[in-house]
């Protein structure tokens, strides 16, 4: 680090050395989890299954909080009521991803981003997929609508919405 120092500790290993030569101990954790969805999210998921989006309102700051939560973090008091919000919104930002969960390359890119939802307080929204778009047509500010799975295929998950697609004429 300084002129005084001569030795920089650390012995670099190549991938070949790491996997073939150096002694490596392996372990695969077997950890499984089941989460209770909680008060706010249980209702949120149940409403998704019915094809609706729901939020909570706070009568103190007048915000409509989406995704819903049982307390207002700003006022630090319980939220007051369930409020349905619309299944339309605006693309706040997006990415076109060529990698999967494990950073492996994928052939068909995934359009993903944040939608601020109509009826919720400004900028409040969720991360989701976009469909029926192309690199040339997707843009920040684009108005979109949820494309729901058929009712019998929904199971109370954010995936009950297949993706968000551009608003059509008259919507």
């Amino acid at each position, binding site marked *: 680090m300084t002129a005084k120092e001569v030795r920089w500790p650390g*012995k670099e290993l190549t991938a070949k050395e790491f996997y073939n030569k150096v002694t490596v101990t392996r372990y695969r954790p077997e950890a499984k*989890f089941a989460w209770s969805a909680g008060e706010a999210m249980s209702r949120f998921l149940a409403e998704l299954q019915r094809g609706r989006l729901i939020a909570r309102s706070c009568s103190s700051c007048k915000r409509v909080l989406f995704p819903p939560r049982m307390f207002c973090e700003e006022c630090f008091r319980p939220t007051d009521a369930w409020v349905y919000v619309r299944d339309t919104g605006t693309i706040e930002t997006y990415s076109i991803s060529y990698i999967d969960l494990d950073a492996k390359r994928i052939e068909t890119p995934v359009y993903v981003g944040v939608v601020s939802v109509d009826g919720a307080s400004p900028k409040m929204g969720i991360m989701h997929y976009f469909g029926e778009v192309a690199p040339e047509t997707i843009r920040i500010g684009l108005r979109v609508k949820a494309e729901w799975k058929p009712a019998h295929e929904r199971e109370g998950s954010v995936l009950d919405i297949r993706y968000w697609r551009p608003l059509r004429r008259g919507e």
Partner: protein
Amino acid sequence: MRKVACIGAGMTLFRRRLQETPKEMCWEAARMALDQAGLEIGDVDAVVFGSAPDAFDGIHMKGENVLDACGGIGRPYVRVFTGGGTGVFSPIAAYWHVASGLFDCVLVVNEEKMSSCQPHPQSVFGHIWDPILDRPLKPNLVWIFAMEMNRYMTVHNVRYEDVAAVAVKNKRNAVGHPCAQLADPHITVEDVMNSEVMAWPVHRLDISPPSDGASALVVCSEEFARTHRIESPVWFAGVGWNIDTTFWTDRDLYFPEYLANAAKIAYKQARITDPRRQIDFAEPYDPFDYKELHHMEGLGLCKKGEAPRLTREGVTQRDGDLPTCPSGGLLGVGNPIAATMGIKVGELYLQLSGQAGQRQIPHEVRTGVTNAWGDLMQFSSVVVMRA
């Protein structure tokens, strides 16, 4: 509060794979920092250890695993954690250990070993997402950076070549760093722009690499520095930290408000009212090239949306008016998450004490600022130091 100094720094090579265990890396960095300060472990009153998620090493409670290598046995020892913000947060913890008057000399050791995680540390990043809202979408962590970068670039109408110029500057600066993993004296903006698209607009060369590495600092009181005849102590002038909501889809990603809040705390303490004029150089956290720009704006080193222009005009080059990442940064030296302390607070110490060698900023610098960024991409820690 008492005045607090940094009086020694050490670090290992930053590499994709190191043979040393987390323990061995910690010991090497700690020993080097003590040697540089001319101290022995017996001079140390307390130890702070910093590391990011346990899952990378695959050893839960890894603070215990490296305890002996950090000189923690028989001493007050604590691990601090603010995710990616740990690299600048553990020195802050050491600062308050000493400023409070509780301890006179504190050793800080930070470590990360990402090569242990198979097949790629990216798989473990998947565990930080919300299990109900985000994980069903099978997200890759790069998505969130891509979304933030796109929002930033769109709001300010930023050209991609001005973002890529940050990666070029830092990888070239890293040529002067003996521990650097990705230094490249010949890299061009075209190389970055033509590199593989991972998650548009993020290209492969916009991203810092996963690395193994450790770093250490020695932090002490004014009196300790005097009685031990330390030649060039560097002083903590201000510290701050701040965090925003974990509902990250509820905030505008174009500006790091949490960083502006953290900087406000640090600047108040350091009596800085005009950062652009009063700060001579910066080590903004740069895991991605656009983050250096984002963080320059959050640190108030320029107006919102102005950082790309400063970069384009050469203001942030090592010989410019406001050098940024003279160390080579995470983009050039590497990104062993918490261990980046060595090229953030560590680089402030080396530059301000005139020990940065080949990387020394050619004009006189008296005040530097650095930040780190982490948790769920909504936390920042800030340190201002003075010669």
